[in-house]
């Protein structure tokens, strides 16, 4: 009887020690939930959700402060993915935060640019190249299409150009069966 008790006690101590050691040894840095939410978000860094970037929004969702339907660039698919991850009900995008637009990149009309650097300061991903009193230009491949540079421009020389479909980015379409109209008698 006593031996059994000692064995159990010993086992408890041993397992406790192992678990304690594992907790220290394999400690997970940061909140994995935030990282997983952040991985779903489109990283546009546009702030339309009301937070200063995708990571802060992910943090807010993880803490239950923000809803999952505040990210227009992520679109409906993004909301679905977030709902899946968070175990929540899907809800349509909140119109207050804007609507989903086709992907675009900013374009600077270089003749009009006065070199004020305001857009450079606004760009969340450092995708604008230029210096004070020198022309600025967008590094199109790095532009996320957040539109944050459009508002600060004092001469309105930045426009958003929708990315056109080319043979390069063209996608095969989902097969559909053509429906023929039948005369209804």
């Amino acid at each position, binding site marked *: 009887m006593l031996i059994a008790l000692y064995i159990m006690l010993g086992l408890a101590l041993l397992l406790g020690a192992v678990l304690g050691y594992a907790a220290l040894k394999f400690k997970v840095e940061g909140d994995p939930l935030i990282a997983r939410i*952040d991985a779903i*978000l*489109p*990283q*546009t*860094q546009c702030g339309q959700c009301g937070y200063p*970037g*995708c*990571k802060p929004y992910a943090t807010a969702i993880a803490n239950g402060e923000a809803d999952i339907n505040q990210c227009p660039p992520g679109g409906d698919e993004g909301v679905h993915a977030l709902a899946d991850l968070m175990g929540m009900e899907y809800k349509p995008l909140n119109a207050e935060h804007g609507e989903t637009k086709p992907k675009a990149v900013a374009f600077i009309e270089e003749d009009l640019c006065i070199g004020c650097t305001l857009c450079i300061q606004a760009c*969340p*991903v*450092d*995708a604008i*190249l*230029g*210096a*004070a*009193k*020198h022309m600025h230009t967008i590094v199109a491949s*790095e532009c*996320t299409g957040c539109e944050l540079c459009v508002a600060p421009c004092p001469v309105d020389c930045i426009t958003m150009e929708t990315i056109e*479909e*080319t*043979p*390069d*980015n*063209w*996608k*095969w*379409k*989902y*097969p559909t*069966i053509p429906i023929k109209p039948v005369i209804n008698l």
Partner: protein
Amino acid sequence: MNAPINIAGLLKKTKDVFRFHGGVHPPENKAQSTQLPIGKLPMPEKLVLPLRQHIGNIPKIKVAIGDHVLKGQLIAEAEGAVSAAIHAPTSGVISAIGEAIIPHPSGLPDHCITITTDGKESWAERYPQDWRNADITTLIGSLRLSGIVGLGGATFPTQIKLGSGKAAIHTLIINAAECEPYITCDDMLMREYHAEIVHGITIVQRLIGASNIIIGIEDNKPEAIKAMRAATTNTAIQVKMVPTLYPSGDARRLVHLVLGQEVPHDKRSTEVGIQVFNVATVLALYRYFEFGEPALSRVVSMTGNVKQPQNFEVLFGTPLVDLVKAAGGAKADTSNFIMGGPMMGFNLPSDNVPITKAANCIIAASPTLFEPPPPAMPCIRCARCADACPVNLQPQELYWFAKSDNFEKAHEYNLFDCIECGACSYVCPSDIPLVQYYRYAKSEIIALDKAKEAADIARERNEFRLARIEREKQERAAKHAARAQGAKSTEAPNESPAVTDKQAAIAAAIARAKAQKTSDEAAAPKNISNISDATKAEIAEIDARRAAAGLTEQVTNRQPNVDDKDKQAKIAAAIARAKAQKAEANASTVSKDVPAKQPVIDAEKQAKIDAAIERAKTLKSAAATPPTNDLNAKPVADLEKQAKIEAAIARAKAQKAAALKAKEDQSKE
């Protein structure tokens, strides 16, 4: 290779060909277009050359509108590692560079170069090479200028296939299976150009050093087999007859057919020592090395619903209408044109598209020739597609995953090993367009991967930016703290703080000037350290005049070295500060009867003048730097800022001193 002896393998080796899993046997329809020899087209008026005719980067245009080009002249140069050059297929004038419809399933326009032909066929300089003796790396290197790509339809730049050279290639397989129905261009090539093809094979053999050479031909081309067998007698080249079974022309299937060896799905055949070349590519290589002719034309089967199906040697860029006309014109009920075979080809958006390097066959389609597919019925899970799949996939599973957008699962079931041969759709009793689902799923997965990559880059850049802003903030805070600390430590031990402060500033300025002088003797005048105030003022005045007059001496002198300008600007500012302080100090010590405000104003004025000079100088130097050079832009901006800050500090100090003086005076009165 010291692989363990494999009994089953040895037994297998006794067989001549090895059947792969699955495959189908659709009606061949090859006889129609083999009745006539390879024909020639009359010179088209215009050639439209899409830049995108191969896998990889689009090449860089080397001509301008209005340029006269000669036949074989390079008009677009390979850009990056995976790319192919484009040459003028005939002589003429570049009449347009811009968007035009290309033969692509999307039907979207793309960049094209249009040549208006002059009909003279005048050749540019050709450089035949001694391929029997020349250095192999030179030969392979020169292929970058040849524009030759895999002509079987994959259009992979040939120089990369020859130049990869990671593993030793022991077996060269020449792909002449031509398994798709209707297509006969390789068949006709072998019948008519067998000797040249054998030369081409010898070239490739020399370039990759293979010892074992096999030509694989489907047994439905007896004439081609006969011709090749005759041409290869007394050579080491083996001609192997493979059974007619679609898709035996797929490179991995052909390797399996002739060697009984399966190339691992995640490896290229070169990694296991096998290289596969299409027979037409080999011929193009021969023409390039023997005659110096780059890729200008190819043989195209024009078949299907045309009056006289035939193979034609077609210049790249020839409009499809010209080809159709040469084949006697399309019959009245022609609905559309298919590029490639009926199994893997796609509908062309119009008959105005150019023939490209990928076009091995054009089929005029009509509803009688290709019945419109009946509506797809539900999958009945019969698994006939799995029986037919030559890649041993589970097409029905892939179909369900693709249909439900379950891309992750489709990927897991090796969707990307699918060669889109269409055998599954061909056997499907429910007429489900399976391949379309796979293509859809593949392009969605590729797009998602790209989006994810872009998001990862954006995240990284955003995090870097936030870190940078934070770092700059801390640096600024640290600087402020250090300055405040410095001010305190000099103030503390002295009775008359104002004077010591000034003295310290002067000492610092002198020290800086000295340091600058020792570090760069040439840049600064040597005679300013011990001269009178009046002389200094004079110097400043002269400087100002000089700056105003736009004399370029100092600018040209200093321009090459931004650091110099920076240093000098700092020194000048320091001198200005020192002067202001000195003048102020003079005023406080000398004058009780002299009007009190006078020196203060003087000092203030002086500081302002100096600051103005400083600003003028920096502006001028900024203007003098070439505006196009972006690298200079930032230092100049920094320098300007620095100078402004210094000037502002000088002004502020002068004002402070003035205010202090006024206070003192007031209290004295």
